[in-house]
């Protein structure tokens, strides 16, 4: 399985997308917050987040979804992401290592779409976020 695919015919059931370690640093969450107009300490400051009852600063959910989308586009640069459907089981803590993974679990060659299991796991191997993405690839 190549690291990238350009059309639906190259996709195999069960193949794994190249995983990567997302930038979960508070520098990055601050940068993200600046662009989207969020300045809540829960995303940018560990002490401030703890005052809100969180274990520390957390990565915003939409930023996590952005990481997942980036993985899909690195794998299939010409893909159109139709949906990213995530279940947030536990917070993705900022400044801690995580891994983004994706696995192809359904292929519709007629429609040119693939379904991908997506996860964000921490160093302990715990799934913090899971879900599925649907992407349309050239036929």
């Amino acid at each position, binding site marked *: 399985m190549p690291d990238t695919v350009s059309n639906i015919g190259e996709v195999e059931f069960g193949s794994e997308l190249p995983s990567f370690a997302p930038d979960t640093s508070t520098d990055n969450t601050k940068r993200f917050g600046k662009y989207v107009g969020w300045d809540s300490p829960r995303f940018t400051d560990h002490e401030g987040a703890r005052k809100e009852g969180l274990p520390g600063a957390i990565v915003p959910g939409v930023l996590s979804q952005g990481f997942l989308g980036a993985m899909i586009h690195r794998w299939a640069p010409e893909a159109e992401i139709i949906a990213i459907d995530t279940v947030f089981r536990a917070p993705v803590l900022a400044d801690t290592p995580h891994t983004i993974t994706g696995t192809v679990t359904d292929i519709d060659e007629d429609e040119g779409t693939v379904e991908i299991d997506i996860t964000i796991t921490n160093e302990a191997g715990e799934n913090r976020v*899971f879900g599925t993405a649907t992407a349309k690839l050239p036929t």
Partner: protein
Amino acid sequence: MILDLHTHSIKSDDGRAKVQNYCQWIRAKSVPIDGFVLTEHRQFDFESDYSELASKFGIAILKGAEVETEYGHVLVFGVNEGLYEEFDFSAIGLSLENVIEKCEKHGALAAPCHPGRPRVGMVAHLEEHGIPDGVRIVETMNGGSRGDEDAVAAKMAEDLGYLGIGGSDSHIVSHIGRCATRFPAVLATEGELVEALKAEEFEAISNKH
């Protein structure tokens, strides 16, 4: 025979897996299970017939439920129409002892799942509610457990003399089979599963890497 006793499909509100894709995945990845039980949240799926899929892939596909009690979430095996009339499967805060009693009345079996999990697991509620009557089996290996949740579950099971089962608690295709339960015999129906659990001859296993 090895069965994953705790799985969810798109029938559950937070499930994202199609049953056909579970079957494809098990075969494509040689997942070491012979079948699985669909335990959808707060419901029992009377409608779906997976017999063709089961036959096509040579995989046992059984159905159960996951209900919510004051002690957290509970797997129910052997659901039938009589049991379904006894309490509201969609409710949260059901009485665990009532669920167990009704299961016994209708030849079913209830087993608290992920008991070591905060809020939705049995251990978190023992101090408030005490030790419930009637529990014999709990899920001691859960594929979605974080931190020491399985260890907490195993400790409770040991302390209270419960037997342990395993299930992946999969909500996406690629997570099926991470934990399961080994039985000495082949089980083809929900009734046979209940009988095997009542016979207390099984072993929880983990395939987590």
